[in-house]
C-alpha cells in the first residue's frame, strides 16, 4: 500500500545554481534515469525522503494485514480462506522486502517499528477503516489494492534501485490480489439479494476512502515537487486518482453496483470521468488519529510486538549460547 503525505521536511526545490558539485552530479544521474544504489552518494534529504516513504509503505503492508486478517477465521469457504491467508501472507512478505530496502539506507527495522509505535511515522490511513462484512474483503482487494497498484506501478521506475526492485515484485502480487478481490465481488453480485446488498454496502463505504489513498490534490501537496524532481514519484496525486476512477467505473458497472457519487459522469471533452468533491476534512481527521480504527490498529501492533519480545530475546539468547558452545568445542 502506498504512503500518503510524505513529510520530507523540505519546502522548496533547489535550483541547479544552489547545488554543490555532488548534488549536481547526483541530479544529472537522476535526469539520465540511472538508478541510485545504497552505496552511492546521495543528498541527505533524498535519503530522508526515501527512508520515510519506504518505511511508511512497509508499515502500511504490516498494518494492512489486520483488516484483512479480521476475516481469515470467518472466510465463508475453504477455498476463500486459503486465498485470503495466502494474500495476507503476501502482505507480510511485502513488508519484509520494504523493511530490507529501507535498511539499505541505514535505518534498522527495530528503529522503524519503534518510530511507528511512537506515532512518529504513519501508515496508509485506509487501514483505519474497519472490515465489517465479508464483502469488505472483496472491496479491499478490488478498490484498495487497485488504488495501491495505480500508485505503485510508477514506483517500479523510482530512482532508488532497491525500492524500485521491491516494487516490481510487489506489483505483480498486488495485481493478483486485485483480481481476487474483484472475484469475491463477482460472486456476491451474482449471488443472493443479501449478498448483492452486502457488496453494495462495501462499495459505499470504501469508495471515498479509496480515492483519498492518492493523497491530497496536487495544489495542496507541498512535497510532491521534490519527489518528482528526484524521480521518487513520477505521476501526480490527481493524475493517479483520475486513472483509478476511469479504470474502476466500468468495473463497477459490470458488477451492477452503483458508485456512491451523484456527480460521477463521463466527460466526452476530457475523455475522463468527472467525479464529485472529496471530503478532505475526513481524510485529515483520520490522518490525525480520528478514524474508526486508528487506536485498535496501533494497539494490536504494539501488543504483538511487546508480546513477542520474549520470543525474540530467547531466539537471540539461544543463538549466542549455541555459538559459544560451538567455539568451546572447537
Amino acid at each position: 500500500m502506498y504512503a500518503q503525505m510524505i513529510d520530507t521536511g523540505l519546502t522548496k526545490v533547489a535550483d541547479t545554481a544552489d547545488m554543490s558539485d555532488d548534488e549536481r552530479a547526483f541530479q544529472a544521474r537522476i535526469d539520465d534515469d540511472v538508478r541510485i544504489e545504497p552505496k552511492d552518494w546521495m543528498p541527505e534529504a533524498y535519503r530522508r525522503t526515501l527512508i520515510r516513504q519506504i518505511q511508511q509503505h512497509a508499515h502500511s503492508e504490516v498494518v494492512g494485514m489486520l483488516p484483512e486478517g479480521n476475516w481469515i477465521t470467518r472466510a465463508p469457504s475453504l477455498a476463500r480462506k486459503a486465498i485470503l491467508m495466502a494474500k495476507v501472507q503476501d502482505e507480510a512478505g511485502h513488508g519484509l522486502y520494504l523493511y530490507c530496502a529501507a535498511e539499505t539506507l541505514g535505518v534498522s527495522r527495530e528503529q522503524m517499528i519503534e518510530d511507528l509505535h511512537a506515532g512518529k511515522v504513519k501508515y496508509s490511513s485506509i487501514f483505519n477503516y474497519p472490515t465489517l462484512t465479508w464483502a469488505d474483503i472483496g472491496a479491499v482487494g478490488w478498490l484498495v489494492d487497485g488504488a495501491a497498484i495505480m500508485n505503485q506501478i510508477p514506483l517500479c521506475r523510482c530512482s532508488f534501485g532497491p525500492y524500485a526492485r521491491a516494487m516490481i515484485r510487489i506489483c505483480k502480487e498486488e495485481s493478483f490480489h486485485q483480481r481476487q478481490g474483484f472475484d469475491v465481488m463477482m460472486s456476491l453480485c451474482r449471488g443472493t439479494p443479501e449478498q448483492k446488498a452486502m457488496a453494495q454496502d462495501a462499495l459505499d463505504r470504501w469508495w471515498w476512502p479509496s480515492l483519498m489513498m492518492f493523497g491530497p490534490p496536487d495544489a495542496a501537496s507541498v512535497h510532491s515537487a521534490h519527489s518528482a524532481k528526484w524521480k521518487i514519484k513520477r505521476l501526480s496525486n490527481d493524475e493517479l486518482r483520475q486513472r483509478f476512477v476511469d479504470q474502476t467505473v466500468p468495473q463497477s458497472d459490470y458488477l451492477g453496483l452503483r458508485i456512491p457519487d451523484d456527480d460521477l459522469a463521463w466527460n466526452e471533452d476530457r475523455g475522463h470521468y468527472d467525479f464529485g468533491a472529496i471530503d478532505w476534512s475526513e481524510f485529515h481527521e483520520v490522518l490525525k488519529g480520528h478514524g474508526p480504527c486508528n487506536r485498535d490498529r496501533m494497539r494490536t501492533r504494539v501488543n504483538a510486538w511487546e508480546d513477542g519480545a520474549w520470543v525474540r530475546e530467547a531466539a537471540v539468547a539461544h543463538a549466542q549460547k549455541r555459538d559459544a558452545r560451538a567455539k568451546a568445542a572447537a
Partner: protein
Amino acid sequence: MKLQLFDYLLRLADNDLVLAQRLGEWVGKGPVLEEDIASTNVGLDLLGQARLWLAYAGEVEARADAVGRSEDQLAFFRTDREFRNLLLVEQPNGHYGDTITRQYLFDQWHVLLLAELATSRDSRIAAIAAKALKEVRYHVERSSQWVIRLGDGTDVSHARMQAAVDALWMYTGEMFSVDETERALIDAGIAADNAALAAPWRAAVQSVFAEATLDVPADPWMQGARGRGGKQGVHTEHLSRMLAEMQALPRMYPEARW
C-alpha cells in the same frame, strides 16, 4: 467399512482444518514478521491437506450413501460433536510458546503418521499422505527448532515452555490410542497403527526436549481415554466456540455461494 473409512478421513481432515484455523488466528500478530510468514505457511499447508482429505471423505460418503457432502458442507455444517480432530489441535493459541509446543507435539506425530499412510493399501490415502509428508517434514523441522530455541533461550522463555509442555502433555495420549474404527482399518492395511507410533514419537520428543532443556512430564494421565475423546467427537469446551466463529457466515446464509 465405508463408514469407518469416512470417519477415519474426517479424523485426518479435521486435525488439519482445526489447526489451520488456530494458526489463522495468529496472522498479523506474530512475534516477528518472518514468523508470521512461516506460521501462515504451515497453516496454508494444513488447510490444503484438510481439503484433500475432505474431498476424499465426500467421495467415500457418496459411495456409501449416494449423497456425498462437499468440502464446505463438511467444514461448515457439522457440529462440534461431529468433528473428529484430536483434542490437542483445538487447544487455544495462548502465547507463542504455547502455540509452538502444540505445533511440535502434533507435527512430530503427524510426520510419523503420514510416513505410514504413504504406504496405505488405499491408493488415494497413500497419494495424499505422500504429498502432505513433504510439507510436514518441514513443519516438524521448524517447530522442533523453535522448541529448542525457546526452551534453551532465556530463563523466562524456558519457564514458559516448560509450563506449555506441562499443560499440553495430557492431550498427547489420544494420538496413540486405537479404537474400533481404526482397528478395522489397520487390519485392512488402510489406516496407520497409532500404537506403533508411540515409541518413535517419544524418542524424537525426548531428544528435542533434551536439547531444549525441557523435562518430559512424568504424569501418565491422559485426556480422551476410554474411547471418549476428540476422535469420537467428545471435545474440550474450546472447539464449539472456535466453530461458531468459523461457521458463522455459511450458516447465516445457507443458500449463498461464495
